[in-house]
């Protein structure tokens, strides 16, 4: 954060962080539930290995503990913006492939998409607190979906949801870091905690 935290800003940030942590926690449990439905409805093997999916941000961060608060927020925001587009693609494909036949999966997907959008907005709020504001979205979205066969798309969806579940865990940790008193978002945290 550019200027030293005023008490009200610090209070506001801690409030946003704690609400963000709750949002991420809820999102994670919903994503885990969605994963179960998804694996079952798509006839996949729950233990199926899925190679890294192009356009899906990876939750694992090198030197996580050295990141500044701003870096954490920016990486989180980029990830959830990407997940928002990826989930929207999945929802569109699901409607095209199944129509109204699998409302449960469609609704679960839509619910998680809503939470991801809300969480992205929440991160933007946190970045606005730093008076630097969130980066614009132009041209930042993931690449258009590659021309994949249906089975590959099913696996890709699995990869997206698994990675999203990982990100929800990471976001909770990042926000706990940010919520620590005395730590402005631009300063690196103490080395007491790492994922």
């Amino acid at each position, binding site marked *: 954060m550019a200027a030293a935290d005023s008490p009200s800003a610090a209070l506001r940030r801690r409030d946003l962080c704690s609400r963000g942590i709750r949002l991420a926690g809820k999102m994670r449990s919903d994503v885990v539930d969605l994963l179960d439905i998804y694996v079952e*409805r*798509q*006839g*996949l*093997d729950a233990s*199926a*290995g899925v190679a890294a999916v192009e356009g899906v941000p990876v939750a694992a961060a090198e030197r996580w503990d050295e990141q500044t608060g701003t870096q954490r927020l920016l990486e989180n925001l980029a990830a959830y913006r990407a997940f928002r587009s990826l989930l929207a693609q999945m929802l569109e494909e699901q*409607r*095209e*492939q*199944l*129509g*109204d*036949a*699998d*409302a449960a999966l469609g609704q679960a997907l839509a619910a998680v998409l809503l939470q991801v959008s809300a969480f992205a907005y929440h991160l933007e709020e946190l970045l606005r607190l730093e008076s630097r504001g969130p980066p614009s979205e132009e041209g930042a979205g993931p690449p258009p979906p590659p021309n994949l*066969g*249906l*089975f*590959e798309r*099913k*696996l890709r969806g699995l990869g997206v949801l698994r990675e999203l579940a990982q990100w929800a865990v990471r976001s909770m940790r990042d926000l706990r870091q940010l919520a620590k008193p005395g730590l402005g978002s631009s300063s690196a945290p103490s080395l007491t905690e790492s994922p």
Partner: protein
Amino acid sequence: PRNLKCVMHNLRKMVCTWDAFSKGRHGQTDFCYTTNDLPSPVCFKTKEKRVEIPVPESSTMVTITTNSISGTALATKEFEIHNKDISFVPLTPRILSLTPDFSTSTLNLKWSDNGSVFPNGLDAFWQIQILRKEVMEKVTQVTYYSKLTHEDIILSWNWTSDMPLECTSHYVKIRSYINVTQFVGPKDWSDWSPVEEVPGKDTEPSGSGVFPQDTVVAVGSDVTICCVHEEGQQIKRMTYGPEIYPMIPLSSRSSAIRVLNASASDTSGTNVVCILSEDEMDGTVLFVGYAPDVPQNLSCETSNFLIIKCTWKPGRPSGLYGKRRTKYSLFERISGKNVSCEVNEMNRERVCGFPVLAGQKTYDFILGVSNPIGQTESSLLVDLTERVHPKTPEKLTVSGNSSTSIRLHWFINGSFAEIRLLCQIEISSGHSEQKLHNVSVPGGKFSTYTAQLNTLHPYTKYQFRVRCSAADHFWRWSDWSRIEEHTTLE
């Protein structure tokens, strides 16, 4: 010279060949032939042991003299060739094209029948052989029949493979037999043509994948699904849904599984997974469903003479959804108008709207139904004036300041100017029996209708409601309107 053999490839010329045993090199050969209708022998020199000469009426005398390099005669032999000794063997057929249609796994073969060298009307038989795999294993052989027309006709033949053409290379060759009726000698099949090939994906350097890709088949089908992988990889196993299936090797880079009597798949299809070495995975999705059922109880009516609403029962669900779902369209034969129907596959009853056409009373509907597996249809001829099911009467009001009569007013949403309406008024009051009063009124366009009721009891509380139908050709009552209460004056 010996072993003179003559073969006809058409009815005019024959090709004669012979053997000649000679030490060291020898010069040209003198070839003479004569027939009854030739004034004198025809002679010529040839380096080959093969000549093409006219086909004789009955027989031909041939004299063959081999010479040394310096031209001195070495050996002379005479042969008499009778028609019955000449065999007839058509020329090897020429494949013009072999075209694959990967979406339907169909090969289209085109070849010329070379009919111009034969008289009109001869029967021709073509044996076509399909081979497959790296080892060019014979898959099938069929005989195709045609009639020659003294012209060169391009013949065409389709063959649908029981496995995707991408799985492995397919080969085709052809030979012919022509039933030359007026020919007395032995007749035989031509040589096989050179093979034509449709290369499989397993021949492309980086070709890989599971085939067919995301296809739809009918319940009960036998399906072959293959996994093509890159050089050096191995297939550990192939699964169809939850089951591991035995693999059929097709080539060093392709193996298949054979699913018999496939059962209906789940909504998202049945996954076919090819697990390769280093746990790499490739796969496809198979959608197994039913062709559409003939729509049952097709019925069409109008509630407002603006839209005709057709409903039907879909019959057995197809088990196909989304973009593979069963689609409906309503075609009206008289006007030629076609409407595609937006149908929610999850609800049992199907509905489709068709616009009422100005000046058209009779409608000859065909409800077309199709999905990737098949199509069917149902038809219905209706006279619209006999299929009127008005909307619920609205805005029922009562007026009148008399003790024994009142006037009822109600509105019906719709354009009924072409018919008369029969409306039924239900009259209830606390202490007398419910009465029904029928009234016939000329239909109107989005009109309010009125009816007078007399012989009511003074100072009595009544409940009125109304419903309507077509007067001349009753089809269905509308729903009852809301109840309207009124107390007559004292």
